[in-house]
């Protein structure tokens, strides 16, 4: 998987690239937006890691401009800006996710993996979370190579949780994704589907990865 790192601090860019390479990504570095443009014209990237304040412009503006004319890989904004309004502005400007400096390489890698799991033209058909894998085309789940037999709804649920592994998926989002408009959703339909999925994962040996956040929703952990 190929990632473009757009960051004007050389040392930081190299360290990020090195850390991501150790985790199986191949990385190119662009020190400014002009370099980023030429890198993107020369190669197809699966994800972009973008610093906001670059010598020749603002990362979000550049991203927005590129997005208007062509498809651009999902972008993760790395910002040194603060906690309140800037974050929201970055997401509104077309970024898919953001992290605030100083970043930990584990967190950065997790966010990039999450971006790559999003549906899109270059999205992979097989999503993998550790030893758990899901083939989105064949609708088949495997744990350590052994197939897990899932109903259509359980498969949808697992795909949703795997695509957003490491983050909390809210109950409302699950209801929206699993049940169509005119389908009546009973209050505990999601709970019932979730407990069936949990039991099947437990039986396959992938137990304990599924967390319930009471009052909010569910989360599939990325790591054991």
């Amino acid at each position, binding site marked *: 998987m190929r990632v473009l790192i757009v960051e004007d*601090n050389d*040392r*930081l860019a190299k*360290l*990020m690239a*090195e*850390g991501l390479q150790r985790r199986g990504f191949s990385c190119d570095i662009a020190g400014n937006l002009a370099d980023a443009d030429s890198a993107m014209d020369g190669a197809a990237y699966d994800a972009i890691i973008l610093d906001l304040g670059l010598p020749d412009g603002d990362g979000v503006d550049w991203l927005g401009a590129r997005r208007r004319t062509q498809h651009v890989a999902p972008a993760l904004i790395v910002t*040194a*800006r*603060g*906690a*309140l*309004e800037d974050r*929201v502005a970055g997401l509104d400007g077309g970024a898919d996710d953001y992290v*605030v*400096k*100083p*970043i*930990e*390489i*584990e967190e950065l890698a997790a966010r990039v993996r999450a971006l790559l799991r999003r549906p899109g033209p270059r999205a992979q058909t097989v999503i993998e979370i550790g030893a758990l894998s899901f083939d989105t085309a064949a609708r088949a789940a495997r744990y350590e190579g052994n197939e897990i037999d899932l109903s259509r709804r359980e498969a949808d649920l697992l795909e949703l949780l795997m695509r957003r592994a*490491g*983050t*909390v998926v*809210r109950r409302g989002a699950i209801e929206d994704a699993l049940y169509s408009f005119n389908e009546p959703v009973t209050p505990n339909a999601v709970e019932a589907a979730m407990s069936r999925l949990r039991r099947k994962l437990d039986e396959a040996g992938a137990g304990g990865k599924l*967390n319930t*956040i*009471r*009052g*909010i*929703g569910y*989360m599939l*952990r990325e790591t054991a």
Partner: protein
Amino acid sequence: MTHRRSVSRRLARGLGLVGLIGSILLLAAVVFFYRLSFVDLNAKQATDRAIREMLEHVGLPVLVLMVPMAFVGLRVIRQAFMPLEEAAMEIEAARGHEREYRIDTSRMPAEALPFTDAVNDLLARLDDAATRQEAFAADVAHELRTPLAVLSLELDRLDHAEASRLKADVAAMRRLIDQLMLLAQIDAATATQLAPEAVPLTDVATDVVSLLAPGVIAAGKTIALEAGAESPIVHGRREAIAAALRNLVENAVRATPAGGAVQVFVGPGCAIRVKDQGPGLSSDRLHDLIRRHSRADHASKDGAGLGLAIVERIMAAHGGALTTDPGARELTLRFPENS
């Protein structure tokens, strides 16, 4: 102790002196015109007459002049100083809203204007200095992020047992910087006085708990949200309220031992409560933490106290309060009802 100078007292003294000098001069005039001599005063009758003459021609005029003058003079002085007294009361009433505060000079007498203008100018300079100080703190925090990111990534490359301990220190520094940035932003936001928006507390709590849950679970703890179907709505700044709740939840997570649970409750009323399994925080201790760190002279290593001081500041800006119930191990963000 030196006696403080008082305008009223000086006026009284001045009038007294004028009265005394006037009386002596009048006395001399009376003595001269009536050709009174000390020889005549020997007779009892003459003395009585002389005293009566004195009272009629000296005592009475002096009294008629001096009493109304003293009365009017004191009254004028009291009225002249009234705007100053009112300004003092207004300044006292503005406690806690010192930023951008200026003395109202519209009712000030012209003589007091140089003083009040000078004070207002001083206030403006203080505001300016505080703003620059805050901007500086924000800049420093901002500039620290990149080297800190480099440091944390360098540590990640080290395959050494000590590296994880150092990484924890970097994480503590990162939290501190986050808090400083937050503080600077709250100050900036307060200065611009944005219009408040309607904020459903349940939405804020859901956002914050969702955001923090992965970290809480990774730390081997659990977190849950308890909210009714109807969300209480407060008027304020959503991002600031979220930041306050985030600080509280992060504190609660740190105070809770591994395997423990943090619970966030929305309501009853316009309040969010955060319950942890730590030792509980007494109101004295909370007060200490907030006061000590609002002066920022004793920041704790992980920024916990600074965090609570920030929560308190956000709540105060919303007309609410941060309260603690050590028995229930709860900290509460309490907003005014129908705010």
